[in-house]
């Protein structure tokens, strides 16, 4: 999985605890809120990045991050450690985003819908990002329709497999592959990159 090495890595490092996630989770499960706060400090950046790219709205993304950690706290007893804590958090975050979209009328396109018809809504600018190519890809990503954007974000930015993404989003693996294909094609168009033979 891609690990972020963004401009805030120093802040993250300052917050980083020598304790492993599993030790912090074990302490948090016993009710240690300080341990849970450390987990928040360690993981909130990636959860925020995921929510922001999926929702394209900072206020909504922050609500989703808050709800993700609140739900994680309430469900800590059910966390069995089969996956990494970060992965578990991301699953909760994706659920929060999808729930928000359902409740507010935003919906991922089905296979048959033409992604080209999707409205291009540029993501608000982030002071974390520099101008230039990164900004271009960020903006292009924000113009993707939700179905493709979710898949592209989860796969290419957060490194999840087709199967994991399909499971997180509650879609078929085939749909996931199709959405990735469409998303990449749209990104190329919008970034002015030449198409490839398989896209």
């Amino acid at each position: 999985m891609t690990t972020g090495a963004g401009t805030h890595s120093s802040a993250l490092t300052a917050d980083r605890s020598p304790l492993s996630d599993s030790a912090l989770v074990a302490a948090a499960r016993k009710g240690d809120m300080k341990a849970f706060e450390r987990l928040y400090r360690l993981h909130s950046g990636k959860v925020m990045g995921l929510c922001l790219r999926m929702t394209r709205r900072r206020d909504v993304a922050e609500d989703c991050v808050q709800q993700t950690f609140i739900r994680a706290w309430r469900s800590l007893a059910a966390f069995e450690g089969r996956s990494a804590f970060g992965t578990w958090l991301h699953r909760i975050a994706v659920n929060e985003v999808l729930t928000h979209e359902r409740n507010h009328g935003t919906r991922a396109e089905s296979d048959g819908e033409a992604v080209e018809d999707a409205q291009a809504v540029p993501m608000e600018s982030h002071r974390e990002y520099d101008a230039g190519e990164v900004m271009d890809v960020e903006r292009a990503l924000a113009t993707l329709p939700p179905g493709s954007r979710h898949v592209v974000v989860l796969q290419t930015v957060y490194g999840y497999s087709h199967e994991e993404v399909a499971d997180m989003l509650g879609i078929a693996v085939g749909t996931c592959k199709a959405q990735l294909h469409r998303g990449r094609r749209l990104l190329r168009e919008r970034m002015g990159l030449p198409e490839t033979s398989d896209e």
Partner: protein
Amino acid sequence: MSEITKGGRDPLDEALASLSADVRPERDLWPEIHAEIAKTPILAPASRVQTTWFRLAATVLLVVATSFTTYYITRHSVQPQTAQNVEPLPAPVTPVQPASFSFGPERLGAGYMNARAELDKRFQERLATLPAADRAKVEKNLADIRHAADEISATLAQHPSDPLLQDLLMSTYQSELQLLANVSDLPSAGSMRTDL
């Protein structure tokens, strides 16, 4: 799969790889999260054993509540007839003893034990009024159930985390309680099942 740059990578992949996975929230969200979770003390993960015993306790409370209601109603409707038709019988030759429960229901606390004792008391009272043949069948069935509970609980004491044994023991306790409740709730006249 794609247009390759001089560096050997697809420019789209390079652009996507340059995105940071970390995006810090503009404000610290922790105070609000903390305020919310402070209202929700985290629950310790319930073990299967605890869950099993809580299920059993809930079953017992339901059985006791139901049988008390039935007992109250039937007592007032059939008591005069019972007093005329049934002579007091001697106590059972072999007193029915509760299972020893080496892994037993005492774990459920005094409330459960009192309720169970009350059910057992009413069972004994009702059993004493049954015809000898019916009483013998009930006693035999109950002895079989309690013998099985003893064996299972002894095995469970050696393997306390075995979910199959836990389920089996709970099911056996439920059978025992059901038999106690059924006999306690029997009307004084009429046939009864002893094959429970």
